[in-house]
C-alpha cells in the first residue's frame, strides 16, 4: 500500500501540538509507516506547499501571513484537520479579542518595565489582523476538528489513522469528567475558594470542595490528566458539545447550576465570579464565535470590570 501524503503547517501557536504528535513515542514509527510527511516546518526543510491527502493546521490566525498560509494549505490538501485549541477556537492568544492590538503592543513595547525603546515594530513583518485572533475556519473550510491544548496523543493517533484509512474518526462527545475518578459529593461548603488556599482532597470533585473546575463543560480530548493529578480543569480543549450546540447554555451557567446543587454556594455567586474572572475561564476559546452568539455573553464588559 502506498503511503498517504500528510502536510503540516503551523500558524500562531506554541509548537505543543507538534510535540504531542511526537509524544506518540513508539507508535510514532508505526504512524510513519502509513503516512508520508511531505511538509512539517519544525522537522523538515520543505518550504512550499506540496499536494497532500491530509493537511494538519495548528495555531490560530493572527497575522496576514497566517491567513495566506491557511489558504495555501486548503488549496494543496484534500482534507483539512484543525489541530489543537488555537486552530479550532483561537487559543490563549484569543485574549487579543478582549484587549485589541493597541493594548497588547502598549504592554509589550511601550509600557514595559525593562523595555527602553518606545516604538512598535512595523517594517517588513506580517501585519496583525485588525480583529486580533481568529480560528482557522473563519477563513477556510475545515473537514475535521481536534481541539485540545494539546490533544492527547491517543486522539492524534485516532485522527491520523482514521483519515488514512478513509474513515471519519469517532472521538466521542463526552466531557472531561468522563475520565476523572474524583467522586462528586454533596457538601456543606458555603463559599468559593481558590486552589492555593488550604488543602485539596485528592479523591473528591473540585466543585464539591468549592473550587471552580471546568471539567463538566469541557470536551475531553485529553483523558483528564489535570484532575487526576490534583489540578482543576482549566478548559483548555474548549467547550463541551452542549455548550457549543445550544445557544442558551453557557459554561458559567452550567457550572453554577451543577455546583450550587452539590454545595451550599449560591448560584449567582458562582456566575458572578466566573464573569469577574472571565479572562481565566474563557481563556482558550475567547475568540470563538461559539460564545459570541450567546445572547447573555458580554465578555469584553466583564473583563473590563474585573481588571485590577
Amino acid at each position, binding site marked *: 500500500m502506498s503511503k498517504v501524503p500528510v502536510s503540516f503547517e503551523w500558524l*500562531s501557536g*506554541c*509548537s*505543543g501540538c507538534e510535540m*504531542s504528535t*511526537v*509524544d506518540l*513515542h513508539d507508535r*510514532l*514509527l508505526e504512524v*510513519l509507516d502509513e503516512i508520508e510527511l511531505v511538509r512539517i*516546518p*519544525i*522537522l*523538515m*526543510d*520543505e*518550504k*512550499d506547499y506540496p499536494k497532500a491527502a491530509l493537511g494538519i493546521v495548528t495555531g490560530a490566525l*493572527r*497575522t496576514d*501571513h497566517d491567513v495566506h498560509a491557511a489558504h495555501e494549505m486548503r488549496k494543496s490538501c484534500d482534507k483539512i484537520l484543525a489541530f489543537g485549541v488555537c486552530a479550532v477556537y483561537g487559543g*490563549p*492568544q484569543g*485574549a*487579543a479579542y478582549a484587549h485589541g492590538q493597541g493594548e*497588547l503592543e502598549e*504592554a*509589550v*513595547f511601550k509600557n*514595559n*518595565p525593562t*523595555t*527602553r*525603546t518606545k*516604538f*512598535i*515594530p*512595523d*517594517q*517588513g*513583518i506580517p501585519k496583525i489582523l485588525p480583529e486580533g485572533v481568529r480560528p482557522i475556519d473563519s477563513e477556510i473550510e475545515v473537514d475535521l476538528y481536534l481541539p485540545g*491544548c*494539546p490533544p492527547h496523543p491517543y486522539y492524534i493517533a485516532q485522527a491520523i489513522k482514521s483519515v488514512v484509512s478513509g474513515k471519519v474518526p469517532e472521538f466521542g462527545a463526552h466531557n472531561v469528567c468522563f475520565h476523572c475518578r474524583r467522586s462528586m459529593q454533596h457538601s456543606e461548603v458555603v463559599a468559593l475558594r*481558590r*486552589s*492555593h*488556599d*488550604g488543602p*485539596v482532597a485528592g479523591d473528591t470533585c473540585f466543585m464539591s470542595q468549592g473550587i471552580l473546575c471546568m471539567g463538566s463543560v469541557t470536551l475531553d480530548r485529553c483523558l483528564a*490528566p*489535570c484532575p487526576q*493529578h*490534583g*489540578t482543576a480543569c482549566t478548559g*483548555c480543549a474548549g467547550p463541551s458539545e452542549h455548550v457549543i450546540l445550544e445557544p442558551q447554555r453557557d459554561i458559567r451557567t452550567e457550572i453554577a447550576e451543577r455546583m450550587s446543587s452539590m454545595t451550599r454556594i449560591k448560584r449567582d455567586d458562582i456566575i458572578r465570579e466566573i464573569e469577574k*474572572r472571565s*479572562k481565566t475561564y474563557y481563556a482558550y476559546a475567547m475568540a470563538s464565535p461559539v460564545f459570541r452568539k450567546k445572547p447573555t455573553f458580554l465578555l469584553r464588559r466583564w473583563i473590563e470590570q*474585573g481588571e*485590577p
Partner: protein
Amino acid sequence: MGRTIVVNPVTRIEGHAKVDIEIDDADQIVAARLHVLEFRGFEKFVEGMQVELMPTLTTRICGTCPHAHHLVAAKCVDAVFGAAPPRAAILQRQLLNAGSIIHSHAIHFFALAAPDLIMGIGAPKEDRNIIALLRAQPDLAKKALRLRSLGQKIAEVVGGRGTHPVTAVAGGMTMALDQEKLVQLRSMATEALELSRFALNAGKKVLADKSELIELLPLKTYDLGTVKEGTWDLYDGTLRLCDPEGKVAKEFDSANYRDVMVEEACRHSYSKNILFKLAAKEVSYRVGPLARLNTCEGLPTAEAQAELLEYRAKFGRPNHQVVLGHYARLIETLACAELALEITGDPDLLSTDVKSEPQHGPRSAIAHVEAPRGVLIHDYDVDAQGLIRKANFIVATQHNMSSIDASLRQAADHFWKRPEAEFLNGVEFAIRCYDPCLSCSTHQLGEMPMIVNLIRRGEIVRQVRR
C-alpha cells in the same frame, strides 16, 4: 546597488522567522539579521488573572519547553504566598526539569541539528531531516527518539502531562509520588543514562568527522548562566555573567534583573533584544548550554563532570565556538540523566509532605530557572487579591538575539559563494546552533518558517525561499 537576501521561512526551529542579509555594491555582506514574525501578547493576556494559575497558563507560551515556564511560574507563586516547598516537592520539580531538558536537548540535537551535521549542510533537502536520518541511520535515529521519549515520559509521570504539565503549584506539588511511579521513573532514568552516554559519544564522533564545521562560527562574547555555589544548576541559584576572557563580571540574584537587563525593540522583528548593563558599558551576551558550561566551575554529577574536563581540555574555558553548543548540549543531557537517576534514589522523593501552605497574603515576585535554551525569568506584579496587575517575561532566545545575528553574518560570509541551497541552509545552520525558540521569544505576539531577502540600499533585489 545594495541587495538583501531573505530566507523565509526558517525551518527546523521552534517558531517562525526570516533572515535579511544586506549586501553592498561590491556584493560584500554588510549585515545579517534574524526577524521574528509572530506576536502573541502574553504579558497582557495574564493581566487580571489569578496569580496561582500562572504555572498552568504560562506553559502555553511554549510547547517545547512548557516545563521551564511551569517551574519558573511555580517558583514565582511560592514567593507570592511565602510558601517554601518541602524537600520532596523540590526533588520532584528537579526531576521534572531533568526529564524536560533530556527531551528538549535530544530532540534538538537529533531532529533539528544532526541532519546538517550528519547528512551535510549541502545535502539535498529531502535528506536533511530526522525521517531521512531514520532511513540512513536507523539505529542512531531510533535511539535518539527513544532518549527524547524517556525524557518527556519522566516529565509526564511527575508533571501529570507530557506537553503542558500541571502539578507544580504554590508551595510545592499537588501530589506525592508512589512506589509504582518510582519504579517506572527509576527504570526510565536508568535507560536514559545509558542512551545519553550513547548520544554523547555519537555526537562527539559526528563533530570529529565534521571538524571543519567546529571552528566555523567563533563568537567571543559574554556568557550568562545559573550557578549554585559555583556549580552548574538548572533549577536554583544565582545568575553569573562572565566576560569574554572567562572572568566573572557580575553575579546576582535574578530578583534584581531589572537593574541589569534592558530590552530594545527592533523595527523589523517582533522579538526584543536584551543588553546587559555593566558599570562602564552595555554588552550583549549569550545563554544556553555553551554559556552554562562556560560560567560554571563544574557539573554536579560524576560522569558529566569527567566529560566537562575532557571538553575543557580540548577547547578551553571559555569556549567561544558556537557550533560546540551542540557538544555542550549533549554533556548537559548526560548530566540530567545522572541527576534524574540520583533523584529517584533519594529516600525523600516519596515523602507525602509535598506542599506548604501560604504564609502571607499575595506579594509581587520574580523568579528564574534555566530553560533548555537558557535563562528564563518571570516577573509578576500582584495586587492584594492575588490578581496579576502586570507581568514581564524574559525568555532565553531573547538574550541570544544579538549573538544569533553575529553568527548569521559569519555563516553568510562563509557560505556566500556556495550553491544557493547550501548557502541558505548554511545560514539556517547558524541559527539552529542556538536552538532558538521563537514560540517563546514571541510570547509577545507569535511564527517561524524562512525567507532570505537580499537587500541592497534598502531594496529587496532578490528573495530566496525553498
